[in-house]
C-alpha cells in the first residue's frame, strides 16, 4: 500500500521534509499547528482581559496593559487565526483533493505563503518586545493616535502587511487551481460547495487585501518620514484612513465566513445523507456575498463624521447583504428536513453555528440601521455582535471542520462522546461569555474601556465566568483531538458516508492523492449512489 503523506520521505528527510515541503497537505498541517498556537495565545489574552473586567477599577493590571491586551487580542485573532483560518488549513488540504487534483496550481508559492505567515507572526510578537512597547491603538490603528503613539505601531503594521501578502498569494493560488485543475468532467456546477466558498473568498483576498496593504504602508511612512497623508495637523483627513481601512476590513469578514459556510454545505449533506437543497443558489450566494461585501464598509463609520447621505446609502446596502446569507440558512435547513440524520460531533458544531451565527447576524441588523446604531455603536453590543459572528461563526466551524476531516487527515478516529461534551460546554460557555455583552452594550457600557460603573458589575461577572466555561470546552476539544492522534482506532476511507472526492481516497491520503485522476460524472452530493462505510473501528491486534 502506498505510503501516506505523513510518512512519505522525499528529497528532504525528517523535519526538512516538512519545512521545505510543497505538498499542499503538509502545508495545511504546518498552518494548523502554527495557527492553533497563536489561537491559544489569543485566547489567553482574552481570558486575562476578562479577568481584569471581573471588578470595576483595577483588578490585575494597569490601564495601559489593558489597552495593549485588547489590541493584541484583536490583531492575533483576526490576522493570525480567523482570516487565514479555514482556507489556509482546510482549503490547502482539501481543495485539490475535492477537485480531483494532485496539488494546487503553484505549490512553491503555497509554501511561500506559509513562510510569510510565520514571518508576519514573528513580527507581531516582536512588536511586543521592542522598546516603545506593545501596540495600544486597538486592532484598527485609527489615526491620528496611531501616528502619534510611541508604541510599536510601525512594526505591527508592517507585520500586517506581510500577513496580507500571505493571504493574497493563497487567494491567487486557489483561483488558478479552481480554474485550471478540476478533474475531467467536473464542470463549475459539479464542484463541491466548499470550493465555491473558497473561490468567492479568494477574490476578496485578492482584491481587498492590497487596499489594507497600502493603507498600513502609509501609516508606516507617516510615522517614519512624516509624509503627511492622514495627519490632520498637515491637512490630512482621518476619515479617509477609516474609509481605506474598512474598504478592506469589511470584506475581510467575508473572507472569514465564506469558507466556513462552505464547510457547512459539506457537513450537512453528509450527516443528513441527502443531496444538498439548492446547490446553485448556495453557490451563487457565495459570489453574491463576496460582491455585496464590498459595498457596505461605511457601516463601521456611522458615528465618525461621514456625510448623512453616505450613511443612508451604506445602511441600505448593509441590509442587502443579509439576503444571500439567508438563502444559505434556508437551504441548509431544507437539506436537513426529512434527511436521515446521523448526529455526530461535526453536525453538533454546525447546529451550534446556525444558532449563534443567526443571533450574530440578526444583531447586525440592529447595528446596520442608523437610528439604533447611534445608541449601541462602540459599546459592548458591537463586541457581542462580532464575537457571535466571527467566533461563533468561523470559530465553531473551524472546530466542526477539524472533527469532520480529522479521520481523513490523520487516519484515526477521535472520541466521539468527549467531542460532543466538549462542543456542548463550548456552546454554553460561549453564550455565557458573550450574551451578557448585548445587554451591557444596550445599557451603555462602552467598548475598550478599562473601568466601568458599578451597575454593570453583575453582567461582567457572568461574562467572565462564561469565559472560564468556554476555555474549559476548548481544552476538552483540543485535548480530545490530540489524544485522537494516538488512538488505536484507525479510520476507514469513508467513516461518515460522504460523497465528495476526498472520501474515495485512503485515510490518510497518499502523497499524490489519486492513483489515477478521477473522471467525474455526477454532482458532489448525490447520496443515492454513495458507498457508505459504517464507522467500524479497526483495533490493533496487540
Amino acid at each position, binding site marked *: 500500500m502506498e505510503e501516506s503523506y505523513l510518512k512519505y520521505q522525499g528529497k528532504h528527510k525528517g523535519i526538512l521534509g516538512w519545512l521545505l515541503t510543497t505538498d499542499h497537505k503538509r502545508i495545511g498541517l504546518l498552518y494548523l499547528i502554527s495557527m492553533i498556537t497563536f489561537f491559544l495565545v489569543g485566547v489567553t489574552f482574552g481570558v486575562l482581559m476578562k479577568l481584569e473586567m471581573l471588578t470595576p477599577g483595577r483588578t490585575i493590571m494597569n490601564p495601559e496593559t489593558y489597552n495593549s491586551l485588547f489590541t493584541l487580542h484583536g490583531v492575533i485573532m483576526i490576522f493570525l487565526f480567523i482570516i487565514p483560518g479555514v482556507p489556509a488549513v482546510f482549503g490547502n488540504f482539501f481543495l485539490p483533493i475535492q477537485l480531483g487534483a494532485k496539488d494546487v496550481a503553484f505549490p512553491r508559492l503555497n509554501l511561500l505563503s506559509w513562510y510569510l505567515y510565520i514571518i508576519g507572526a514573528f513580527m507581531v510578537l516582536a512588536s511586543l518586545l521592542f522598546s516603545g512597547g506593545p501596540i495600544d491603538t486597538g486592532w484598527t490603528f485609527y489615526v491620528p493616535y496611531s501616528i502619534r503613539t510611541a508604541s510599536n505601531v510601525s512594526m505591527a503594521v508592517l507585520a500586517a502587511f506581510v500577513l496580507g501578502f500571505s493571504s493574497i498569494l493563497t487567494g491567487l493560488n486557489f483561483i488558478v487551481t479552481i*480554474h485550471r485543475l478540476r478533474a475531467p468532467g467536473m464542470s463549475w456546477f459539479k464542484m463541491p460547495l466548499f470550493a465555491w466558498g473558497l473561490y468567492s473568498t479568494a*477574490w476578496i483576498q485578492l*482584491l481587498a487585501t492590497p*487596499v489594507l496593504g497600502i493603507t498600513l504602508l502609509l501609516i508606516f511612512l507617516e510615522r517614519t518620514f512624516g509624509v503627511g497623508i492622514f495627519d490632520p495637523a498637515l491637512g490630512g483627513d482621518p*476619515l*479617509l484612513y477609516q*474609509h481605506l481601512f474598512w*474598504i478592506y476590513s469589511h470584506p475581510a469578514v467575508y473572507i472569514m465566513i465564506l469558507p466556513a459556510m462552505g464547510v457547512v454545505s459539506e457537513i450537512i449533506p453528509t450527516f443528513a445523507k441527502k443531496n444538498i437543497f439548492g446547490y446553485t443558489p448556495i453557490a451563487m450566494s457565495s459570489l453574491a456575498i463576496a460582491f455585496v461585501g*464590498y*459595498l457596505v*464598509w*461605511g457601516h463601521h463609520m456611522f458615528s465618525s463624521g*461621514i*456625510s*448623512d*447621505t*453616505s450613511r443612508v*446609502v*451604506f445602511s441600505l446596502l448593509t441590509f442587502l447583504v443579509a439576503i444571500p446569507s439567508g438563502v444559505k440558512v434556508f437551504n441548509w435547513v431544507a437539506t436537513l428536513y426529512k434527511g436521515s440524520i446521523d448526529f455526530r460531533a461535526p453536525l453538533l458544531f454546525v447546529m451550534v453555528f446556525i444558532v449563534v451565527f443567526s443571533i450574530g447576524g440578526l444583531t447586525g441588523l440592529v447595528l446596520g440601521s442608523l437610528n439604533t446604531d447611534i445608541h449601541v455603536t462602540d459599546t459592548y453590543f458591537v463586541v457581542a455582535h462580532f464575537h457571535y459572528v466571527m467566533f461563533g461563526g468561523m470559530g465553531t466551524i473551524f472546530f466542526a471542520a477539524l472533527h469532520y476531516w480529522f479521520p481523513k487527515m490523520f487516519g484515526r478516529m477521535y472520541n466521539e462522546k468527549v467531542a460532543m461534551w466538549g462542543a456542548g460546554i463550548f456552546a454554553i460557555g460561549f453564550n455565557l461569555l458573550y450574551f451578557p455583552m448585548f445587554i451591557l452594550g444596550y445599557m451603555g457600557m462602552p467598548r475598550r474601556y478599562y473601568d466601568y460603573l458599578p451597575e454593570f458589575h453583575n453582567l461582567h461577572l457572568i461574562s467572565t465566568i462564561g469565559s472560564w466555561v468556554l476555555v474549559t470546552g476548548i481544552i476538552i476539544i483540543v485535548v480530545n483531538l490530540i489524544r485522537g492522534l494516538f488512538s488505536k482506532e484507525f479510520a476507514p476511507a469513508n467513516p461518515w458516508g460522504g460523497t465528495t472526492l476526498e472520501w474515495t481516497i485512503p485515510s490518510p491520503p497518499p502523497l499524490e492523492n489519486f492513483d489515477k485522476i478521477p473522471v467525474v460524472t455526477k454532482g458532489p452530493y448525490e447520496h443515492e449512489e454513495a458507498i457508505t462505510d459504517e464507522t467500524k473501528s479497526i483495533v490493533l491486534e496487540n
Partner: protein
Amino acid sequence: MNNHITHTGENYGLYIVVWLGLVALTLITVALAGFNLLYLTVVTALAIAIVKSLLVVNYFMHVKTDSPVFKIFIGVSVATFIIMVILTFFDLTFRVPIK
C-alpha cells in the same frame, strides 16, 4: 500532456502603430493641459489616459485576442475599484462644513 501554446508569425507592424497612437495621445494630453477647461480638465485627462491604457492592455498585453476569462478578471477588478471610489465620494461630496 503539456499545455503549451506555440505562437508563430507575429506581426510587428501592429505594435508600432499602437505605439504611434500612444505617443500621439500623450502629446495631445500635454497640449490640452495648456487650456483652462475647469472641471473638464480632469475628465479629459482621465479619458485620454483610459484610451491609452486600453491600447496597452488590448494590444501589448494581448487581452483582445486572449481567452475571455482575462477580460472578466480585469473587468471585475476595475469595477471593484470604481465602486470603492464612488462610495467614498458619497461621503466627501455631501459633507456639511461646521461653521
